């Protein structure tokens, strides 16, 4: 098996007294696409929000177990460092409304007060927008507001913004659920291209999408990791009965 970048060990998450994830064990392969699928409310979004510690924004959130990036426990690091190494793109495109396209891409540097020269900035912006397959469409309008773009373009702008920080892992939380089919196809192509450079973990409740784009798939149901393996196997010969029922549309 390929080299592992992220290891989730005996991981449980709670909001107050409500247990959302129950003893999840999972290792994520480097520079592959890992899809996390499951019905609504199963805990899949919580799982990826725990990976860059965004779940801590909810006051009563608690976790037990470990998540290792290479060999370092994310929970003994400062969340700010964790989030710079592990980027995230959200369900709804959320470019900064007060910033231009250009400033949105380098927002991670600007907001963090990291000083870089104009040339370096230009390079980061161009490179990130190219990686996010948005450069051609916006290169003449870099100083317009990001919110003028279409939904799909905004989402690619958010991907460019995350890529600009050169994360090791990119988390995508149902990135296409607010987009039309054409924009969705565009993002899926982009994911296939991106995995050459960065590890991608994508949450989706769209089974077909998981099958199309992922190398590995995890199926989560009621906070439990039911099945995890290569997507090829999972979608052809699922081991668990619940996985089979979910894939065939018996529930979900």
């Amino acid at each position, binding site marked *: 098996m390929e080299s592992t970048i992220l290891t989730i060990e005996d991981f449980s998450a709670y909001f107050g007294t409500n247990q959302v994830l129950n003893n999840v064990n999972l290792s994520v392969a480097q520079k592959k696409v890992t899809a996390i699928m499951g019905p609504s409310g199963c805990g899949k979004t919580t799982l990826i929000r725990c990976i860059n510690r*965004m779940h801590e924004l909810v006051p009563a959130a608690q976790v037990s177990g470990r998540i290792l990036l290479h060999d370092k426990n994310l929970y003994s690091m400062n969340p700010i460092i964790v989030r710079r190494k592990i980027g995230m793109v*959200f369900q*709804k495109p*959320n470019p*900064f409304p007060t910033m231009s396209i250009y400033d949105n891409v380098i927002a991670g540097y600007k*907001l963090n*007060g990291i000083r870089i020269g104009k040339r370096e900035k230009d390079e980061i912006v161009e490179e990130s927008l190219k990686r996010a397959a948005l450069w051609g469409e916006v290169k003449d309008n870099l100083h317009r507001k990001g919110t003028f773009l279409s939904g799909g373009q905004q989402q690619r702008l958010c991907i460019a913004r995350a890529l600009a*920080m050169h994360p090791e892992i990119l988390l995508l939380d149902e990135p296409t659920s607010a987009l039309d089919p054409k924009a969705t196809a565009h993002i899926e192509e982009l994911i296939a291209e991106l995995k050459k450079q960065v590890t991608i973990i994508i949450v989706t409740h769209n089974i077909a999408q998981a099958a199309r784009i992922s190398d590995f798939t995890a199926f989560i149901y009621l906070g439990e990791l039911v099945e995890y393996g290569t997507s090829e196997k999972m979608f052809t010969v699922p081991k668990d009965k619940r996985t089979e029922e979910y894939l065939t549309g018996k529930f979900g």
Partner: protein
Amino acid sequence: MSEHTLSLRIIKDRGFKTLVILFSFITIVPLLFILFHIIKNGIGVINWQFLTSLPKPVGEVGGGIANAIVGTFILIVMSCMLSIPLGVSAGIYLSERREGWLASLVRLSVDILQGIPSIVMGILAYAWVVLSLGTFSAFSGSVALGIMMLPIIVRSTEETLKLIPEMLKEASLSLGVPYYRTVLRVILPAGASGIVTGILLSVARVAGETAPLLFTAFGSPFMDVNIFKPVNSLPLVIFNYATSPYPSWHQLAWGASLVLVGMVLTLNFSAKLVTKRWKVQF
């Protein structure tokens, strides 16, 4: 339903509509009357000399309100300096922490503060500042006005920031931006128009306050920019001139009223403009 009851309903419907429109129209009548009256009586006194010269003793012709305009400006700038940092910070706190004992306490205090009569603020500033410094001063007046501005600034900041989508904060935090920078560089700029509008409205609210200044800024016939000396202001000029027995001073009071009302209207229009122009599209 019979023809008769139906037509009765239509008549009632029309009557109700007419009444609502009529009453709405009546609400703008007082403002129109005030403006009309003030302009009619005040416009005659206003000229360059009125705006740029100091008051003259009784009996002498002319005299102006230059010191009152400058004084009002000093009072407003200083009360802004006192109330904006406090008010915006409290507003940020309330919008970020919606529950908890401190938040409820702050919210309650701010609501009560808003209902306290302005003359009480004046007495308070008198007891705190005037008595301890031993003199009436622009500073003490600013303290009184600043406290009156606080509730408006706190509430408008809170309400504005509450409307900013959570996902914007998440976008910033997910880039590894520390919380304080997220608040200062993402959330505050996104809410700038609402916050500035609130500040302008609070200034408009206190610009015409007389009661808090009676025993704090006190008034003065001189041009004085020392903040620890008594200072004149437009509302005080109006109060003093209008209650005097001299008809020529009544004229000056009308002129000062026109200047003050003009200022307040300008502030209100600016607030509208800011809301419109700086609107952030999420």
